């Protein structure tokens, strides 16, 4: 039988799971498609290195982030300080490793907020007809036309003091930034989910589930939602990048986290008045933001190719 082609891969039960014929589960197929996007794979590697560095960095590079040393201010990169020092002689590598945690945490949490709000609203709008759908889409359009950055700045200006009084300076700003960035970015997800629901809920397999007596909730969670997830994953990936930019922008304008928390945007804000004597201070955090955002965007592009089964590669 060796060399002959079976009509179905299940004919030969003794075949190992990793052989080429078996590689047609949706997940393996997606992985095969993702690997063909070379930039996306390279980006995934770079991003993984950055995440590992941020997660393990403080163990490997145990320099305190607020260790002031006036004998070594505004130094360029050297062996003692690989990324140089700032105007107080604080080690920039240690500060960037700490700030990266906050930037990535804000990005992921804001994405989670945006995706969950978007999926819930899109699912409700897609399943219900009539005025609920019309109202939710009207709400989505309303939010889409809001100027995000001025509104973000206004909300932070109005509510920062109240929240920091309740949750402490770090927690309060974190909650505020995450909720506001996530709350201003759910609209594309809601539209995508609604569009997918409108076509999926008329498909035969959902009709079969309905005929078998599945409740609307079970139809959504078990049958429709898993099939609508592809574009949501792509949108969610890109949302992480957008949230990182939004948080860095806030910090860069001096309106984000408190000054003693060195997020990447805050490092740039502090560095911008010393550009002439210490360009490294601005270049390293800026490059970190750029790399994180670029790699996440490329991964999103790769996922778009991988998760759309209709796309021919």
């Amino acid at each position: 039988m060796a060399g002959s082609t079976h009509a179905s891969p299940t004919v030969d039960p003794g075949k190992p799971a990793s052989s080429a014929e078996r590689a047609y589960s949706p997940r393996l197929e997606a992985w095969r498609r993702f690997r063909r996007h070379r930039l996306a794979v390279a980006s995934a590697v770079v991003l993984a290195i950055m995440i590992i560095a941020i997660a393990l960095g403080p163990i490997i590079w145990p320099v305190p982030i607020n260790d002031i040393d006036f004998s070594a201010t505004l130094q360029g990169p050297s062996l003692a300080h690989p990324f140089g020092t700032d105007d107080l002689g604080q080690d920039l590598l240690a500060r960037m490793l700490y700030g990266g945690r906050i930037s990535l945490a804000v990005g992921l949490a804001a994405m989670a907020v945006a995706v969950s709000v978007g999926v819930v609203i899109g699912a409700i709008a897609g399943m219900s007809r009539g005025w609920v759908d019309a109202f939710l889409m009207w709400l989505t359009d309303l939010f889409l036309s809001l100027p995000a950055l001025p509104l973000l700045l206004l909300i932070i200006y109005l509510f920062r003091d109240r929240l920091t009084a309740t949750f402490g300076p770090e927690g309060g700003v974190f909650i505020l930034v995450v909720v506001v960035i996530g709350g201003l970015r759910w609209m594309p997800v809601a539209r995508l989910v609604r569009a997918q629901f409108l076509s999926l809920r008329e498909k035969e397999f959902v009709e079969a589930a309905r005929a078998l007596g599945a409740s609307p909730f079970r139809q959504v969670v078990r049958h429709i939602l898993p099939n609508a997830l592809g574009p949501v994953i792509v949108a969610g990936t890109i949302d992480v990048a957008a949230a990182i930019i939004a948080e860095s922008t806030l910090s860069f304008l001096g309106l984000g986290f408190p000054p003693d928390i060195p997020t990447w945007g805050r490092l740039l804000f502090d560095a911008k008045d010393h550009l002439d004597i210490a360009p490294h201070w601005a270049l390293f955090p800026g490059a970190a933001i750029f790399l994180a955002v670029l790699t996440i965007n490329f991964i999103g592009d790769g996922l778009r190719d991988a998760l759309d089964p209709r796309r021919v590669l």
Partner: protein
Amino acid sequence: MPPEVQEALRKKFGLDDPVYLRYFRWLSSMLQGDWGYSFVSRVDVDTLILQRLPTTLIVIGSSQILALLVALPVGIYAATRPYSIFDQIANTLAFIGFSLPTFFTGLLLILVFSIWLDWLPFVYRADIAATGWQFYWEHIKQSIMPVTVLGLFQGASLVRYVRSAVLDVIRLDYVTTARSKGLEERVVILKHVVRNALIPVVTLIALQMPVVFGGAIVTEQIFRVPGIGSLLISSMLANDTPVIMAVTFVFACLVVLFNLIADILYGWLDPRISYR
């Protein structure tokens, strides 16, 4: 300040009234054109904004023109040769372009062109002491960097939209008809394809305005352009509430205005759509 004076002041400005009363008082005076005065500079808010609005509109307008000048040719050329080397390079550059945050590109340009090369000034000045051609030249010189930063960021995301819009149209039957009539490829693309492909792009530009205003706030802050974006940031840092409310209100009005323009333009450009 003695407590009785404080009390009298609170009473005079109506600070002890319930929130909805204060809101309606603010709304009615806003509608009557009384926008209050800045706590910091003691200047009326509307004069302050009117002084600064033209600068913002000039910077935003010229950056939009730059974005179009970059995005239209590159997007159209990439769409006529999809998956070619040029298309791939343009696509990668576009990705890099909108992954670079405006505040970082701004700092990079300052570092290269102001500090290392010393070609361009990095602070935008409204009061230039020169006259005649010198005056205009100085203005152009100081606008180059803010306009480039904003324009390239916008252009990078526009390139992808232009490309996909042209790709959608170029497969249609009427384009094949135009080709089979024996028209030149250049005429087919410019007269038949681009005209229809640009309809969604025009509306997209208007709908992108909220993002552009966001970018303008950042660029104005980096280059110290005296527009309403930097006014917003400086009044936030100084707790100057009347100015903050008014500037956000102006931003909101501009966004609504551009949405309206988008809707009207869409109906005018595409006769298949009618509003009834």
